[in-house]
């Protein structure tokens, strides 16, 4: 069969010069049917692999991408030349849906953005909505929300720790961290009835007060968690494989991290001591005694250290919160947003009308807009809400920390090996529900 020789005439994105400075392409042969096979090379010639690029597609269905993230990698050998993330596979249109729902009806969607931090999202959303209504919550509610937010931070970091350890090849920490997380889910369940999608906050308060014995359960968790953290710390922090796989990987300098808009542990690992709880406090965080963990190199190892320390600091905060937990109502006394007592709404005409109007028409904030940032486990999470005076927001915008953090993966991954991309991706701590929304 007669063979014709031709070059692959499709441009490579960034051709790598060969040793003599020119771009060389492998001569490929095509038979009459157009099929090309390197085996059919003319005798005496060898394929030039110098400038060959390989295109690797990771995801969207891949266990190491932590969700439906798709990474397109252009490789030179095993080195990543280019990393293009593709997102949107989990796009649910939360922001669009929010424009058609009353303010309290949006709370269940905040669970589903970051299901690891559902309680934290509920509260962050409620804080934003309360600013829009001009409501100040009660002292007991403030302290309960601090406890809930810090517990969410702990479980989110625990999942991150376990899953990242699995990515790097250590399976055992996964079981330890998930056992601890289970305790918190039991606490959630006894508090609000749900484990993952808590929907616990309401505008002006919480869905329920703590059940009897809940504080004791939490104290038990606070006793066992530091032991688990110590165990994991002993297993990983000085582990040769762990250190070798994480040190010097995905480095972001402080100025780069700020310019890329990174937040949370990603930013602090780069040496920027920005924490919303300290710099733009909410829920009286300024009255708690806790430290901000800051890294020095901005690599994956520093992000691990920062998250480990944050869990310990969260334990400190919860202990202080438990010590000051005041009695009193958890909901504000504001008829604009809080339903009347059930016994009243079934026995008094006025309360029944009030109940009906709040449920059917929904609370109406004054015209205005606000953005209230909170420190979520992934970074700065805020809700930007615009009200036109009706019971549904004109715009409900989620400021997604993982979305902005993930946008830096192209920068972090380039020049590293293929297997390191998995580790860098894990270090961002993404949840696709929040990125795609």
């Amino acid at each position, binding site marked *: 069969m007669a063979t014709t020789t031709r070059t*692959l005439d*499709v441009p*490579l*994105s960034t051709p790598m010069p060969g040793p003599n400075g020119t771009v060389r392409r492998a001569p490929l042969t095509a038979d009459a049917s157009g099929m*090309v096979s390197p085996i059919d090379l003319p005798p005496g010639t060898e394929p030039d692999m110098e400038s*060959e*690029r*390989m*295109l690797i597609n990771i995801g969207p269905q891949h266990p190491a991408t932590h969700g439906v993230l798709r990474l397109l990698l252009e490789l030179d050998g095993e080195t990543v030349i280019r990393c293009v993330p593709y*997102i949107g596979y989990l*796009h649910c*249109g939360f*922001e*669009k*849906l929010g424009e*058609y729902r009353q303010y309290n009806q949006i709370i269940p969607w905040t669970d589903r953005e970051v299901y690891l931090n559902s309680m934290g999202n509920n509260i962050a959303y409620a804080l934003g909505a309360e600013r829009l209504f*001009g409501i*100040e919550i009660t002292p007991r509610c403030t302290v309960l929300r601090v406890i809930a937010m810090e517990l969410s931070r702990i479980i989110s970091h625990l999942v991150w720790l376990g899953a990242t350890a699995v990515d790097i090849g250590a399976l055992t920490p996964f079981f330890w961290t998930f056992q601890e997380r289970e305790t918190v889910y039991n606490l959630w369940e006894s508090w609000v009835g749900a484990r993952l999608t808590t929907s616990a906050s309401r505008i002006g308060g919480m869905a329920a007060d703590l059940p009897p014995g809940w504080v004791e359960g939490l104290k038990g968790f606070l006793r066992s968690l530091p032991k688990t953290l110590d165990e994991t710390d002993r297993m990983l922090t000085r582990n040769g494989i762990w250190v070798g796989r994480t040190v010097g990987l995905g480095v972001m300098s*402080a100025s780069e991290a*700020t*310019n890329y*808009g990174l937040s949370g542990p990603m930013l602090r690992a*780069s*040496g*920027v*001591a*920005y924490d919303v709880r*300290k*710099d*733009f406090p909410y*829920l*009286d*965080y*300024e009255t708690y005694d806790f430290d901000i963990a*800051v890294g*020095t*190199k*901005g690599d994956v190892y520093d992000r691990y250290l920062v998250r480990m320390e944050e869990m310990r600091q969260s334990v400190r905060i919860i202990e202080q919160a438990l010590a000051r937990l005041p009695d009193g109502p958890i909901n504000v006394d504001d008829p604009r947003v809080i339903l009347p007592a059930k016994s009243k709404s079934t026995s008094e005409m006025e309360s029944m009308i009030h109940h009906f109007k709040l449920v059917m028409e929904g609370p109406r904030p*004054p015209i*205005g*807009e*606000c*953005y209230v940032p909170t420190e979520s486990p992934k970074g*700065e999470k*805020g809700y*930007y809400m*615009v009200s*036109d005076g*009706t019971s549904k927001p*004109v*715009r409900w*915008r989620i*400021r997604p920390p993982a*979305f*902005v953090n993930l*946008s*830096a993966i192209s*920068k972090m991954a380039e020049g590293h090996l293929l297997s390191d991309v998995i580790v860098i991706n894990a270090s961002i701590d993404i949840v696709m529900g929040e990125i*795609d*929304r």
Partner: protein
Amino acid sequence: MTVVLPGAALPRATPDPVTPRGIPHRGGDVNPSVDALRSRFGTVIDRHEVTWGETCVWIDAATIREVVLWLRDDPAQQYDYLVDVTAVEHRDLELPLEMVWHLRSLPFRRFLRIKATLDKDAVLEVPSIEPVYKAANWLEREVFDMFGINFAGHSDMRRILMWDAYSEGHPLRKDFPLRGRFSRSEQLTQALGANPEAPYAMEELSVAAAFHELPADMRARLLAEKGKG
């Protein structure tokens, strides 16, 4: 590497920030950057308002890049952190579209909202601030995807949440129906009839080593693209 401390540019005697209380609905402390912007840019700065303690400045959309570049680099402002880029379309369709930029100065612990109105009848285009803040890369792509506002000077203006070939419009616009433009059954029919190769972007296929394995029509398209470039 030295640790960067937020609030480093504030006078030493400044008290630590506290949880805000009793924030008025309208009025209150104005962000001092507004006066600085007025003296620097003059009439480009339209008006400002303080809502729930947050200062919002209205500017001419065409000047956004110069404004944020100055805000970032001026030693008395140092807005080094881009929080968010988004847009708002009001229910009242007479009202113009609004672009919203949220900036933060870590050294001064300030937060500033910049807004610009866009006439819906004109070409929806504003200058990209990606050259100033890398964080704007995906945020602006999302605004383009969801609202159809184009960002001039952006390095990679593509859809981000919806797929490249999506042609039904921009979902967060108020004239986009909540359930989409087609019924469920029509959407299913379209999905079953779609070319599964279509979601792949041209650029990724152009570097594919398996070029010759692509369908003939796609190869023709790629070569045509190459000829254009």
